[in-house]
């Protein structure tokens, strides 16, 4: 695999971001996959998915957040407080979940205490929790509110032609990633789950046209490859936000391969195209709000279960790892339901709770994953 993907995935201020900034262009961060980042790109702004990767302590995060809060937004705030996101010209916070939406206040207050850590453009972007005609209407207005704010703050214009062009570009990357997903689930995959996550993560931190070119090259190489990874336990990773390639590396070890996922830093990033024939803002609203893969869309469990079951079948999954960051009740509870229903359907599951951040629990996690792989091994023998 081209190392640029991995480099982009494991550094915050990567080469592409630096080049973009050196060209005098703006970068705006966002915290959730429900933000239509096409809007920013059409304005000549690099959309950048804010991550907590690389935080090694939580002193700043704990100063503002209370104790019973997911460690991901705390890690994000920690990095912001340490100046690691100083390259951001703006940030968009969404109510992806309660912990994440409170990043709004905590970051603003930290900005009052620590000079320079709050981007000048700071926007609270609402996202409804269900899909209906009136919620889509509201969401369209919210996207328009964001558009006006971006145009006003950055002195840019987001015209319809540019937006259509951007939608086409982003759709192209989605098509390529879908193709990439199909190659990942081959009997002899040419790429590990660790590398695959790096490929997807890179797309959230680099210019999309460059990303498309890199993806085309990668997919070409994967198609030519005969694939070497055979006989490994095929896993699907599901649950809370996971943007740390080292977590997948830990899970895969020598015996397993993650061939599919339902993660917001993973396949949720690229599922579903934006309708290119529709009016652009309407089309963006439809694509982003109709996404039901995240448990923040309440009452859609049955659809998500079906999606996972189908995915497991297509990818010939041996087992599913259902993980949640501690205090992530949305994924944690839904994982409980998935475990019940997937096991009932004959798909082995491992449900684990973990902390976000540096892998302080490596031993415990590794032991549980190994035991799970043993279980799957036994199952294969008796099949």
């Amino acid at each position, binding site marked *: 695999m081209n190392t640029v993907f991995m480099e982009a995935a494991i550094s915050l201020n990567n080469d592409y971001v630096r080049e973009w900034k050196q060209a005098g262009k703006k970068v705006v961060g966002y915290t959730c996959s429900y933000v239509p980042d096409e809007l920013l790109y059409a304005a000549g702004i690099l959309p950048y998915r804010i991550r907590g990767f690389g935080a090694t302590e939580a002193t700043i995060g704990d*100063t503002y957040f209370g104790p019973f809060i997911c460690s991901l937004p705390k890690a994000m705030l920690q990095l912001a407080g340490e100046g690691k996101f100083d390259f951001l010209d703006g940030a968009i916070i969404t109510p992806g979940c*309660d912990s994440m939406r409170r990043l709004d206040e905590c970051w603003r*207050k930290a900005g009052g205490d620590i000079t320079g850590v709050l981007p000048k453009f700071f926007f609270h972007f609402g996202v409804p929790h269900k899909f209906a005609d009136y*919620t889509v209407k509201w969401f369209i207005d919210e996207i328009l509110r964001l558009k006006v704010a971006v145009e006003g703050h950055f002195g840019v214009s987001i015209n319809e032609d540019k937006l259509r062009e951007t939608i086409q570009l982003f759709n192209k990357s989605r098509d390529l990633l879908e193709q990439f997903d199909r190659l990942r689930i081959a009997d002899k995959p040419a790429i590990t789950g660790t590398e695959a996550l790096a490929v997807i993560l890179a797309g959230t931190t680099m210019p999309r046209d460059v990303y498309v070119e890199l993806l085309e090259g990668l997919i070409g190489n994967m198609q030519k490859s005969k694939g070497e990874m055979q006989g490994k336990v095929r896993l699907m990773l599901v649950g809370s936000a996971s943007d740390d390639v080292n977590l997948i590396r830990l899970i895969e070890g020598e015996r397993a391969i993650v061939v599919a996922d339902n993660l917001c830093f993973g396949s949720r990033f690229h599922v579903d195209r934006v309708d290119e024939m529709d009016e652009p803002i309407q089309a963006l609203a439809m694509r982003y709000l109709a996404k039901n893969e995240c448990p923040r869309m309440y009452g859609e469990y049955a659809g998500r279960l079906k999606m996972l079951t189908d995915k497991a079948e297509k990818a010939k999954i041996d087992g599913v790892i259902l993980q949640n960051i501690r205090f992530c009740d949305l994924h944690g509870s839904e994982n409980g339901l998935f475990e019940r229903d997937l096991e009932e359907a004959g798909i082995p599951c491992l449900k684990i709770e973990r902390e976000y951040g540096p892998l302080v629990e490596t031993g415990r996690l590794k032991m549980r994953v190994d035991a799970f792989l043993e279980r799957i091994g036994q199952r294969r023998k008796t099949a």
Partner: protein
Amino acid sequence: MRPELKEYKFDSMLWTTFAAAAKLRNGSEKEFRTMLKYIPYFNGTVTAVLDAGEPGQLFLECITKYFENYITARDRGFHNAITTFCFSPGILYAMDVYPICLEVVSVAQTFAYKRGTAEFLDYCNEVGYTETSCSSQRGTLGAFLAGLGAEVDMVLTDTPGVCDTNANAFAFAAAYLKKPFFSLDMPPVLVDPRTDKYHNSDFKALIAFIEKNTGRKLDIDKLRVVLREIEKQEEIVAELEDLARIVPNPLPVTFNMMLYATRFLFSGMKECTVVLESMLKVASDNASRGISGLTGGVEKMRAFFCYIDHYTNGLRLWDFLDRNGICYQGNILSRSWAKTAPHVKEYRTEASAYSFDMKDLDSMIRTMADHNSRMPMIKSIRGPYDAPDMWLQDTLSLAKMYSADCIIYNGTPGCRNTWGMVKLLARDTEQAGFPTFIMYGDAFDDRVESWEASQDRLEEFLRVRRLLP
């Protein structure tokens, strides 16, 4: 879970427990005192509530009726729905759907039982629901997941956009029990024409959902009757809130809890009005005589609770306040946001309040949608805490208006939302001159921090900040 817990339906047990409690005063004083010995974990609550006089008696009868209603609803040809405290039950009563408010039933359990809801809390975890979720729903949800409650028809909530852990509890319940689910969604900004339209459309969708799942059409006349009753109740609540401003406060400490619990159970129904009227009679009488509602008769200080109370076990929080001469100046749950509410008039916040318009069906739906979207928590914890009409503004204005000497936060570790901003809130309220205390216990689960430990810390705060003479 202990096997004996599975012997009977948990809610039928609670029904008979409260029914018996409501009859305790029917005998002589000696008989009453004798009976208390046989309910060692419930007698604290029973005594405190019944000592409040007629309102306490009516309150216990009200709870009894609530259990009877939802447990027998299906036998009587009606429906029931699992729902939440901040979902106004008015629309449900208007459509012959009897609510099962998880949080209030959890409180009933913590008041009545030695172990409170502990075993049902843990049962939830056994079936995959996270232990970090809010204990207010979990304590009762566990009983329903275990099949120990009444048969349920549907699950309703209105907290998406306000409280994930709450909304998630109901979504989980619906998926686990395979019941129809509907949620009202809340945009982050309260006073906004977009939000009004959204609430209105959402509420219409709720009515359509209930009609579909009950096979009954909304009866406009019935809705009008319910709304008139809610309007009447709001006027009584406004009078009670006005009385609470007097020094000394003529309301007994238990009144605040009784006020909000009654509204959560029976808003829009006569049962609620009767309790409120009785409370008003006692409070007005105390006020006319210039006496405090505190048992000791001396008001030493006033506390405002900026979130919820501490419900374990046997009304010990209220007992602590009463014993120490601390006047309870309300919490987030007890406030009404009708335009007639004293704080709404005082601070001219009518735009964020609601009024009653019963002209036609559309105006009534709009009224219900406005009322529902201004229920406790729904109103003030949807957007950033320091945004207009949100938590900080409400807390500071209420603490000031009710002359609080301090602000106390108590919640549950499951409350991701307030724990995400309470440190910031406390910093601001301290800067505004209110000594502020954050309690780290769990309002519904003594195992997180015993009440004794919570009380020690609270006493330390009051001592160190020299709040109690």
